[in-house]
């Protein structure tokens, strides 16, 4: 009978829950339903024109080269950052977790970029990536090629530049999550494996990685949801350019819906994003669950 009072229903229960219930209805459910309804209309905020047009918005979106580009860029961004972020995070976590001196200090330093405002980070990198900036100096020092006009002004490097920044920024956060998972692995497993003469590589494969799996799934889904919503970086650094090479779905939604006020069209794009995220998160769950590492 521990911990639970089997009382009758009290009005205080409802009252205590009401802040969440109101928030849920007003700021979560209502917008989602409104978004769904709006995406089947051609609502224009300015003229007030509003009529039901069925799936026209969706058809128009898929023949809109800017939107198609936005979807592709968002996919490239997610697929291109995810493996790096996760691999770096796992490697760092294992490194930090193995009796590293000043462990807490280093752990905090690696994590630091994730708590600074994204706007600040994007502003710093805009300058770092500029013509003649530090990153160009670094690359020319080691003899690598770079676009002389600056990374954010070249069609081929703008998106990769933002992706690299994102990996740099979020690695520390996921490292922390993996450290948490590593700490939950019982030390006896390693001791037993050592007694049996298993090498470091074998212990990694047989013990560490399998135990990281639940966290890996969590990180995968979390990072996918986050990556698909990339907006601030684009707004601060490139505004979608050059040649739409950094146009992302959320930026497209913002431009169409809140800049040009094609509310219905923007909402339809947002719903496609929603579906994409749900689909990919589902695929990730299936993949990780089924593959018995």
């Amino acid at each position, binding site marked *: 009978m521990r911990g639970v009072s089997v009382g009758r229903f009290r009005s205080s229960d409802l009252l205590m829950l009401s802040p*969440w219930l109101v928030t849920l209805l007003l700021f979560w459910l209502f917008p989602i339903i409104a*978004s769904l309804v709006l995406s089947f209309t051609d609502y224009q905020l300015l003229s007030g024109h509003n009529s039901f047009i069925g799936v026209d918005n969706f058809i128009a979106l898929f023949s809109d080269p800017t939107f198609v580009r936005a979807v592709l860029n968002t996919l490239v961004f997610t697929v291109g950052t995810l493996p790096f972020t996760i691999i770096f995070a796992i490697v760092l976590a294992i490194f930090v977790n193995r009796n590293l001196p000043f462990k807490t200090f280093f752990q*905090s330093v690696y994590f630091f970029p994730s708590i600074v405002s994204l706007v600040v980070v994007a502003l710093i990198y805009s300058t770092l990536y500029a013509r003649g900036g530090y990153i160009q100096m670094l690359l020319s020092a080691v003899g690598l090629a770079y676009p002389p006009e600056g990374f954010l002004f070249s069609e081929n490097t703008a998106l990769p530049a933002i992706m690299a920044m994102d990996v740099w920024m979020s690695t520390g956060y996921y490292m922390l999550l993996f450290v*948490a998972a590593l700490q939950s692995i019982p030390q006896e497993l390693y001791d037993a494996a050592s007694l049996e003469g298993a090498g470091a590589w074998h212990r990694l494969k047989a013990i560490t990685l399998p135990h990281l799996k639940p966290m890996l799934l969590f990180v995968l889904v979390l990072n996918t949801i986050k990556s698909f919503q990339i907006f601030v970086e684009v707004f601060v650094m490139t505004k979608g350019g050059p040649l739409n090479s950094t146009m992302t779905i959320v930026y497209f939604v913002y431009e169409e819906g809140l800049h040009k006020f094609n509310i219905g069209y923007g909402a339809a794009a947002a719903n496609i994003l929603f579906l994409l995220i749900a689909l990919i998160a589902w695929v990730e769950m299936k993949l990780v669950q089924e593959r018995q590492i």
Partner: protein
Amino acid sequence: MTRHSKSPARPLRLVIAASVAFIFLAPFIYLLLGSLAKNFNLAGTLDLASYSFTLANYTSLFSQAGLYRPVVNSIIVALVVTVGNVIFCTLCGYVLARRRFRGKNLVMLSVVMVLMIPTHVVIIPMYLLTNWLGIFDSYLALILPFLVTPLGVFLMRQYISTLPADMEESARLEGASEWTIVWKIVMPLCKPAIAVLSVQVFLVNWNSFIYPFILTSSESMRTLPVALALLQGYQSINIPQLFAASMISALPTTILFVVFSRRITEGIISGALKG
């Protein structure tokens, strides 16, 4: 002993750790030095040979670019939202952890489901909603939607479930109301969770960009990140000033981080393990 022999020698590992730390810190060192620099190279690099300190970049920001109001706005919004989350998430967490009634599981499910909703997907309806409610471009638009966060409810519920319920039971037998129980018994016991929650919520709201950006329009309602992002388009703002403004935005989070570093990292680690 065997384990140590397999890993690289201690000094080598320290060198590696320090180099990695440098990669993560270098841009911020650049930011700090740049914000205090008297002269900048055109390309945005620092002339370290002739480097000299000045606070002019900071002072000119407040006189020229009017950064005072955004700072105040950010503080107000972040503080109110944090306090709101502490109170409301504790209340909701308590009910979900302790009480039993029909539909409770449904509420719990709603919390978990909403946790997974990508927030940027609903920027358009949120924008319309604040207009219809008549709170567009006001503090209410920046505060009301964020007063209770699903993550906060979830964290508090998880934490309260681990607490023993004996004290609550005896208080109830003595005729204390549910409100008194939460306020006098549960809240004090939740201090560690509340600390984690407050730091988390404060950081998120202090740094939040997209909602303050789309839900306000006047200069006087901007929060710091919004003001910062829009400053860069100004003709009269140069890089050192932009860096100084960025420092002002990054400073409170840095201080919070230095003071509560363990709380934050432990909060994330324990939160992750429970979730």
